[in-house]
């Protein structure tokens, strides 16, 4: 890591664990839960957020001295909305099926609290390069949770990963299905996303007791 100084590296590693945007900062929950029934959708969503956050943080940081503080929210929203339109059009052009699955949740990246939260907390006070790195770091932290949740929900819910039948074929009774294993269709339903994230928070906080809240 010759290019990145130690301080910059911390901007990337912190959001991955002890300052994770979803489990600690409680930002960006909405989209994290709604689209994680399949691993593929989670990965695409993560990439979209990575793109929007990196570039958005960079742009806002460049403009931080010329934005009048009173209208900064509107300016931020316009910047994000522009980037999200780009993502949406690219998805529609190259992955039409997937963009149908994600439906309005691509649009909802605009109001994803992670993005606004990092603009307010970081990009308005730091230089463009550092802001870009911060954006990428937080997007990676977000991606990590999304992929973990998507992995378990798809594996336990439909017995596949990225569409491949890793547990065998449930109809022909091959693989683990030969021993009487059944898919837990409940994992595919919306409420299990919440409970899965709850369990991730539980595991994380019992490993690192500093993070425990007092109600």
């Amino acid at each position, binding site marked *: 890591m010759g290019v990145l100084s130690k301080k910059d590296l911390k901007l990337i590693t912190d959001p991955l664990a002890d300052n994770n945007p979803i*489990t600690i900062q*409680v*930002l*960006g*929950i*909405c*989209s994290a*839960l*709604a*689209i994680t*029934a*399949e691993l593929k959708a989670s990965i695409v969503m993560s990439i979209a957020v990575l793109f929007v956050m990196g570039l958005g943080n960079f742009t806002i940081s460049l403009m931080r001295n010329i934005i009048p503080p009173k209208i900064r*929210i*509107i300016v931020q*929203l*316009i910047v994000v*909305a*522009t980037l*999200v*339109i780009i993502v*949406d*059009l690219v998805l529609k052009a190259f992955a039409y099926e997937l963009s149908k*699955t994600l*439906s*309005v949740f691509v*649009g*909802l990246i*605009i*109001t*994803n*609290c992670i993005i*606004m939260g990092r603009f307010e907390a970081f990009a308005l006070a730091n230089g463009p390069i550092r802001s870009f790195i911060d954006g990428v770091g937080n997007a990676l932290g977000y991606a990590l949770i999304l992929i973990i949740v998507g992995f378990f929900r798809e594996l336990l*819910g*439909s017995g596949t990963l990225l569409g491949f039948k890793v547990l065998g074929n*449930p*109809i022909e009774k091959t693989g683990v299905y030969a021993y009487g294993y059944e*898919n837990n*269709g409940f994992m*595919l*339903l*919306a*409420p*299990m*996303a*919440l*409970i899965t*994230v*709850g*369990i991730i*928070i*539980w*595991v*994380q*906080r*019992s490993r690192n*007791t500093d993070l*425990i*809240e*007092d*109600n």
Partner: protein
Amino acid sequence: MEHIELFFKSIFVDNMVFATFLGMCSYLAVSKKVSTAVGLGAAVIFVMAITVPLNWLLDQYILQEGALKWLGEEYADYDLSFLSFIMFIATIATMVQLVEIIVEKFAPALYNSLGIFLPLIAVNCAILGGSLFMQSREIASLDLAFNYGVSSGIGFFLAILAIAAIREKIRYSNVPAPLRGLGITFIITGLMAIGFMSFGGMLTGGDEEETTETVVAQVDVEKDAKDLANNAKEILE
């Protein structure tokens, strides 16, 4: 009838928080006390009642394919729907600002109770989500759009009120330390969402509005049915 159906459907079946997970951020952040939760819930109803019909008008007369026909025949084949994100969010942000100014001037008491929540609302996913769902579900008329805005707001209000009441009580319970605060709130919300799923059967026979999740679940059911058929065959043989 159409109105009553949409009203109950948006509150219970397609509840903003429990069915689509919109507005989760503020839902989790502002649900520690019942009084603040009521303030935010009321503000959401208020803003959604204004922005959803407004965005419906925008969508109908500017953004949709062929919507510019009223300007003249030569504009009839314009399709500006790719601009809808930016137009919707701009409308919401300006409306929130405007509402804040008006309420401050004419109803200071209401302003004091909503006060800090109004600016927060501009970035609440539930508000933008309401407008985007309004667009993707092709709500047919202005009064239906108004109805949809109000009833989705009430759905959010109900959800945040319920979780705030539960969180006030749970403070006296012995929750495992790592789950305290955020973790237990997530799990309770999950359980509440399961409870709300039971409303799903309330409106059968209406138009089938399938979210992606239910489509996946249906595919699964079909698989199960095939499984059963295969089993039956084996048994017969």
